[in-house]
Each structure stands twice: as structure tokens, then as C-alpha cells.
């Protein structure tokens, strides 16, 4: 309910109770919004800077439930009744004129009484009826009151028609008063079957009064506008009363009245005609004047609508019954009067009580729905008030309509001071400027859903705190802009965390960079050292070998053995350096990734290890391996290492069995390759030492090696995003598994 933000007393436009009675539906509606008026039409005439509301009053889009009528529809039905009445009146008058003018005797002779209407009367009724029809076709809007100032040509026409009808009446009176004939009737009608006498006698006094009064009323309404309508209706009501009196008199057969020459005498047809016109005038503007009391939305109006028909029609009916009973001699005058009084009391009491009951029920429902609304409003108010977010609502002109406690606190403003004032009067200039800029932005784009801005860019940011400000247009159900809302949330904490996180991230990146640098340096160092170790090693090996060869004959057996040990040590150191260099190379070299035929690589590597098979019974099985995406040289090194180990540790088996295979999971997980041997195996409790550089699980005397091979393999696989692990059992064998991701 966006509109409730601006006006504490406004009500929901939608009817909320459910008794299904159309007439009663609107009682809880917007009556109180503007004094004596209707929210929608009034709003339509307010200067609207967006210019879109003016055309929307005709199509009120209140939700209409099946089987019910909205209040506006009820009002429209009044207008329809008015135009219908006027149309029937016009038809009657026109028919009378045509019949007399054309002298259609065949029609007149059948029901002579029905066609008795003086030509002046008929003309006045016709003119008035047309005028009322024109009023009914004007749009049903409330107009600015004017003073003898017709605003449109239509107004002018209506006024002229009314004035013409009144003039006919005045002229007729003049005829009577002056005792002369102006001959209006003769100009209009030929002499009919009733002869000159009827015509010459002229319309009755009552008819003359009625035509003058109703014509003047219509003229007034057009020339003086809304303000005069109370008087217009008063005149129309008087005319209606006169018509009713004539009709009642006719029904009651009261000779003194029925006599056309009597002051109250008039023909039934004239009375019906004037009655219809009077009703039309009363109903054509139901919202104006005191008709608002009857057509209005309030409970009083509802009661009036209930009681009035009973009074207007019930009492004459009772009177007729009484008269008929008296005339037939069933009862006397006193009894008749007593019964009439009693019946009137009962009838009015019943209808008043019934009406009261209905009204009470509606008021209960109204109170309940009001209580519901109050509760809903209290909840929304509580939400706004208790929120930590800084919330404000401005009307389209930029005046604050609502601010919450957080707003007061944050900007140090007082609610009393802020409400109804613009931001420049409330906030400091810079802040107001930013807020207004953002607001104008949002309003210009109108239907932009939510304007989100970091607060430091928008209103805030001067303080340590950071606010995230959302500004959005508020539109009503019909799409009219009725204001803008702003919700600013304190994100200082988040911002601080973000900054902290950013700083930590930077630190971490810095540390990582340094670690990388250190590792690079270390790698480079290891590489250089390994190289520089080669030279002295070559010297040791070279000179020892020369001594061994040149001095073969001179050397004692022991010396020769020592020299062999020197050579052996040099050889071991050489291969250790080679392994270290390889280990280092794995960390330093760029990966050159391609799709690899793993079966082919495994077979080629195995072929190169032919020297390992010499003099042994080794059965090597290479199963079909799924392809992989990896660096060919490194994968070859992996197979080389694993296969060499398999050969090495199965050396003491009579029949060594080595199997290279792969496990392919069904769920699309990466392929696991394996190299299995039936060698000596190892104790699984030392499995974690398997891949650490220089760690060995067997004595060098039994199985030579640097302890760098598996570390290198692990390094290769890690660089590929994969991993390696082992399963082994002492004296049964080992399976090395690896996976590339």
C-alpha cells in the first residue's frame, strides 16, 4: 500500500468485506480522503507533473469481484437511470407533440386521457429532457465552480435549453396574468380531436410552475456549476413532489386535485413527464449537492437509500389501501386513520431496524478490516522504525514523507523538522545534492527497478562508515509515480573485512612470490652445485682409473681393492648427481603437454630396460592403457623409474612377474595406472618415506639407488596435477599406482 506512506488517514481503495452485496461494498472506502469527495476524481484534477493521470479516471481499475459492483459502477448506474428517465420523458413529450401535430386521431381516440398534455408543457419537457441527456453525456467529473460562466459550448447549449423551457413557463404565466394568447401552442399543434377548447384553456398552473422551475434549475446548473447543484436538486425534488402529488391524487381519485382547473390539477402524462425529468436531474450528478447524502458511500447514505423508498412509496400505498377500505365501507375514518398510523409506524420501524442491523454489521466488518489494516500498518511501521537501514521516502516533489529512527540518528535530523521538507532544508548541502542527483536520476528513468550505488559514491563516504544506498521510484497500482524510496545499509564492517581480506591476500601473494623466488634460487643452486660436483668427480674417476691401469703390476691386491672402491664411489656419486639433476629439471622445465599413447610409451621404456632382463626369467605384461594428456618425456621418466624399481626389487625371484595396467572407473573419475611386481615389497608403515628424496627402504648393499627416483616421479605427477601411491606386502610384491588429472 504505497499511498499510505503519504497520508496517515488514507484507506485502501479495495473493498475488503465479503458479503457479496454490491450496494454495500464500498462503505469502507476512501470517503475520508478528501472532504466531501472521491479520491480518484479529485486526484485526476490535481496538477500532475507527470501528466498521466488525467485520462485514467474513466477506467478505474479497482479489482472487481464476480457478482459484485464497485462503488464507481454504482455511481455510473445512477447516471444511467438519469439518462434513461430523461430519454423516456423526451419520448413521451415528443410522442405527444407528434401525435397532436400530425393529428393521428386513431391513436388519440383509443386512450384520450393519455394524450392530454398541453403543447407548451410537452415542449418544455422535451427541451429539459434533451438538456439532461446532454448533462449525462458530459464526463462525470467534478468541475471547478464558476460564476455565470459556461465553460464549454455544451454548457452553453444545456443552459440555453433549460432557459428556453423556463421561458415557455414564464411566458405561459404571462399569458395567464395578462389574459392574452401568445399562440405558442397553436404554432406547434394543429387542432386535434379535443378541439380548441382544451388548447385554448392552456396548461394547468402546476404544469406551468413545474416547467418554469425545472427549466430554471437546468439553466442554473449549466451556468453556475457544481455549487448550485444543491439548489438545482432542491428544485428538482420540489418538482418531483408536485408530480407525485398529482399522481397520488389521481390514484386516490381526489377530485379537487384532479380537476385541471384547480391549482393542483395536472394531467397524469404531464406529471409522469415532469416526474421523470425531476428524477433525471436528481440522479444525473449524484455526487453533487445533497444527493451525495443518498448516493454517497457512507453508512448514513446507505440507510437513506434503504429508508427513502419505503417512505416515498410505502406510505402512499398504505394511504391508498386505507382509502380503498374506507370507500368500500369496510372501516370508518377513525379506524382507517388508526390502522394507517399503526401500519406506517410498523413499516418505518421495521425498515429502520433492518437498516440499522445492516449498518452495524458493516461497521463490525469495517472495524475488523480497519484493525487488520492498523495491525499491518503497525508491523510495517515497526519494520521501518526498527531497521538498522537508513530509510526515507520522498514525495514526487522531493518532500520527505517518512524517515525512520536510523535516518534521524545518521543525519542528526529531527523527524518533526524533516517531514514535509526537502532534502536541502534537512541535510547538509553536499549530502542533499548527492541524494537529489541520485533521486532525479531514478525518477527520470521512472521504471528503473532499483538503483544501486555504493554509498561512498553516493551520499556517504566522508565518514569512516560506508553505506550502500538503494534509491527506487514508488508507483501506485496504476503506474503513477507517487514518490521515491531510499534505503541505505551500513556496509562499513563488510568493507573493512574486504579491505582486510585484500591486504591479507596481498601479503599472501607477496609471501608466495618470495617462496617461489626462494625455491627458484634453491633449484638453481642445486643445479649449479650438481654440475660443479661433476668436475672433481671426473678427476677422481679419471686419475684413479689411470693409476689402476698404469700401475696394475705394482699394486698390492689391497691397493687395487681400494682403488676399485674409489671408482665405485665415484660411479655412485655420478649417478646420484644425475638423479639430482633430473629431480631439479622436473621442477624447472615447462610442461609440454600432448595426448599420449600410454601403452606405447610403457612398451618402449620396457624395451630400453632389456639389460635388466639379462640372465633372468622375467615375465612382463603390458596391458592396454587408456591414453593420457601429459608431457611425454616426463611420463616416460615415470615408467622408467617404476619399471626399473620393479626389475630391481624382483631380482631375487626365480620367476619375476611385472604387470603394467590401468583401472578405469565407470563414473568418469581419472584413470589410475599401475606397475605391479612380485618383488620383496616393503612394510607399509614406512610408506610415507617412499617418496621423500634420499629416503630408502632397503639397504644399499641389497638394492642400490639414490632414493631420488620416486621423489622425482612424485614431482612429475604433482606437476601434472596427479598423484602416486603404493600398496605393498613384504615378500609378496609392490604395486605402484599413479593418476594424472
Amino acid at each position, binding site marked *: 500500500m504505497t499511498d499510505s506512506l503519504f497520508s496517515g488517514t488514507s484507506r485502501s481503495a479495495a473493498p475488503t468485506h465479503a458479503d457479496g452485496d454490491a450496494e454495500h461494498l464500498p462503505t469502507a472506502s476512501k470517503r475520508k480522503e478528501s472532504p466531501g469527495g472521491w479520491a480518484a476524481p479529485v486526484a485526476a484534477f490535481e496538477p500532475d507533473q507527470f501528466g498521466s493521470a488525467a485520462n485514467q479516471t474513466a477506467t478505474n481499475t479497482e479489482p472487481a469481484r464476480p457478482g459484485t459492483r464497485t462503488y464507481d459502477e454504482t455511481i455510473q448506474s445512477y447516471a444511467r437511470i438519469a439518462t434513461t428517465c430523461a430519454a423516456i420523458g423526451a419520448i413521451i413529450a415528443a410522442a405527444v407533440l407528434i401525435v397532436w401535430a400530425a393529428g393521428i386521431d386513431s391513436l388519440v381516440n383509443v386512450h384520450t386521457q393519455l394524450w392530454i398534455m398541453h403543447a407548451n408543457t410537452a415542449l418544455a419537457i422535451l427541451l429539459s429532457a434533451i438538456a439532461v441527456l446532454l448533462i449525462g453525456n458530459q464526463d462525470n467529473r467534478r468541475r471547478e465552480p464558476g460564476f455565470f460562466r459556461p465553460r464549454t459550448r455544451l454548457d452553453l447549449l444545456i443552459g440555453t435549453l433549460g432557459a428556453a423551457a423556463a421561458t415557455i413557463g414564464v411566458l405561459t404565466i404571462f399569458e395567464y396574468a395578462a389574459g392574452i394568447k401568445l399562440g405558442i401552442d397553436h404554432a406547434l399543434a394543429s387542432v386535434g380531436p379535443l378541439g380548441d377548447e382544451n388548447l385554448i384553456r392552456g396548461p394547468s398552473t402546476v404544469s406551468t410552475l413545474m416547467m418554469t422551475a425545472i427549466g430554471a434549475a437546468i439553466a442554473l446548473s449549466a451556468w453556475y456549476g457544481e455549487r448550485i447543484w444543491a439548489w438545482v436538486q432542491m428544485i428538482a425534488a420540489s418538482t418531483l413532489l408536485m408530480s407525485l402529488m398529482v399522481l397520488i391524487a389521481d390514484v386516490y381519485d381526489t377530485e379537487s386535485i384532479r380537476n385541471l382547473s384547480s391549482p393542483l390539477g395536472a394531467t397524469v402524462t404531464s406529471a409522469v413527464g415532469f416526474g421523470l425529468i425531476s428524477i433525471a436531474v436528481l440522479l444525473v450528478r449524484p455526487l453533487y449537492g445533497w444527493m451525495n447524502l443518498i448516493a454517497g458511500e457512507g453508512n448514513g447514505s446507505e440507510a437513506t437509500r434503504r429508508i427513502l423508498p419505503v417512505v416515498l412509496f410505502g406510505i402512499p400505498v398504505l394511504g391508498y389501501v386505507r382509502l380503498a377500505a374506507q370507500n368500500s365501507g369496510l372501516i370508518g375514518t377513525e379506524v382507517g386513520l388508526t390502522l394507517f398510523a399503526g401500519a406506517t409506524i410498523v413499516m418505518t420501524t421495521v425498515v429502520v431496524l433492518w437498516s440499522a442491523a445492516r449498518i452495524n454489521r458493516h461497521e463490525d466488518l469495517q472495524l475488523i478490516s480497519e484493525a487488520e489494516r492498523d495491525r499491518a500498518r503497525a508491523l510495517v511501521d515497526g519494520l521501518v522504525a526498527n531497521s538498522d537501514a537508513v530509510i526515507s521516502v520522498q514525495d514526487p516533489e522531493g518532500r520527505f514523507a517518512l524517515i525512520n529512527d536510523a535516518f534521524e540518528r545518521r543525519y542528526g535530523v529531527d523527524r518533526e523538522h524533516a517531514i514535509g521538507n526537502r532534502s536541502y532544508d534537512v541535510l547538509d548541502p553536499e549530502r542533499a545534492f548527492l541524494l537529489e542527483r541520485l533521486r532525479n536520476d531514478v525518477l527520470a528513468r521512472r521504471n528503473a527497478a532499483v538503483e544501486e550505488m555504493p554509498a561512498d559514491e553516493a551520499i556517504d563516504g566522508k565518514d569512516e562508515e560506508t553505506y550502500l544506498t538503494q534509491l527506487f521510484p514508488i508507483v501506485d497500482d496504476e503506474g503513477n509515480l507517487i514518490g521515491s524510496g531510499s534505503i541505505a545499509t551500513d556496509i562499513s564492517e563488510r568493507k573493512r573485512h574486504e579491505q582486510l581480506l585484500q591486504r591479507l591476500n596481498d601479503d599472501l601473494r607477496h609471501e608466495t612470490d618470495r617462496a617461489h623466488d626462494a625455491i627458484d634460487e634453491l633449484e638453481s643452486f642445486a643445479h649449479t652445485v650438481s654440475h660443479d660436483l661433476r668436475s672433481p*668427480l*671426473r*678427476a677422481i*674417476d679419471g686419475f684413479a682409473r689411470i693409476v689402476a691401469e698404469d700401475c696394475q703390476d705394482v699394486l698390492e691386491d689391497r691397493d687395487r681393492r681400494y682403488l676399485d672402491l674409489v671408482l665405485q664411489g665415484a660411479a655412485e656419486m655420478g649417478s646420484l648427481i644425475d638423479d639430482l639433476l633430473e629431480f631439479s629439471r622436473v621442477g624447472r622445465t615447462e610442461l609440454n603437454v600432448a595426448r599420449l599413447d600410454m601403452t606405447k610409451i610403457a612398451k618402449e621404456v620396457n624395451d630400453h630396460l632389456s639389460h635388466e632382463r639379462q640372465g633372468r626369467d622375467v615375465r612382463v605384461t603390458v596391458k592396454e592403457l587408456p591414453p593420457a594428456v601429459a608431457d611425454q618425456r616426463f611420463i616416460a621418466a615415470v615408467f622408467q623409474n617404476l619399471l626399473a624399481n620393479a626389475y630391481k626389487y624382483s631380482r631375487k625371484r626365480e620367476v619375476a612377474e611385472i604387470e603394467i595396467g590401468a583401472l578405469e572407473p565407470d563414473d568418469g573419475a581419472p584413470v589410475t595406472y599401475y606397475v605391479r611386481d612380485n618383488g620383496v615389497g616393503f612394510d607399509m608403515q614406512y610408506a610415507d618415506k617412499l617418496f621423500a628424496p634420499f629416503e630408502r627402504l632397503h639397504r644399499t648393499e641389497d638394492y642400490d639407488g639414490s632414493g631420488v627416483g620416486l621423489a622425482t616421479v612424485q614431482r612429475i605427477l604433482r606437476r601434472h596435477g596427479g598423484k602416486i601411491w603404493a600398496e605393498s606386502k613384504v615378500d609378496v610384491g609392490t604395486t605402484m599406482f599413479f593418476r594424472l588429472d
Partner: protein
Amino acid sequence: MDESDSILLVEDNADDIELAMLAFKRHGIADCVNVALDGGEALDFLRGRGRFADRAGAPNPRVILLDIKMPLVNGLELLREIKADQRTRKIPVVVLTSSRDERDVETAYDLGVNGYVAKPAGFSEFVDLIGLLKRYWLEVNESPPDSV
């Protein structure tokens, strides 16, 4: 033809020089080898200057065996000088080093080296390697016209 200047060995490490000379001796070509102890000396030898002033105008060696790791002017810098000089750029240069560093290999080829050979750690393999080099560069390969 005077074969004594067929090979120029550029090597700073005395042990390596001696081992290399032993290996050359085993293949009977120790007399064909001249040794420069650093890049500067090598350039002096090639240009007939300083210690090698008597070689001015002498023909170029048939192959230069070049170590990379040397003080002052290192092997790759020397290689750049040799290949930049009109008089020496045709001389085949073979890097003979213990470095298998890929960057060194790439740089050497960028500079126009004619061969890159890694020294094995074992002496007997080294002797075999020298035999291969001798056979190829002194017997198989056709040297540039202004060589020894």
C-alpha cells in the same frame, strides 16, 4: 701438413685439462692439441696475439673444443666473439661441458655452435667420447679451406 694446431681446447680446470690430454694421448692425437686456459687466451691464439704472437697468419684449427664454465670470458661469450669475427666464424666449435642445462644448449645453438657434447662423469666413457670426436672432426669431416 703441420697437424699440431688441429685442435684448440679451451678449458680452465687443470684436472680436466690433464684428463683430456690423457684421453687425447690414448688416441694418439695429444700433439695436435693446443690448450687455451680462458676465453682471452683462446682469442689471442686465434688472432696470433700475446702469448701466441708467433702464430700470426697461421691457419685456423680444424675444431675448437669449448668448455662453458670459465672465469672472465666464459665459453658462450667466447663463442659469440668467434662467430662474430669474419676470420674465425667458419671454424667448427663443439661445446664440451658438464652442463646439460637447456638454456645453455639453446644459447649455444643460437650463437651458431656446431656441436654440443656433455662430458660423461666416468673417465673411460670420456676416453670413448674423445675417440668419437677425433674420428668425426679430424677424419670424417671436411674442414673449411683455411684450416690446418
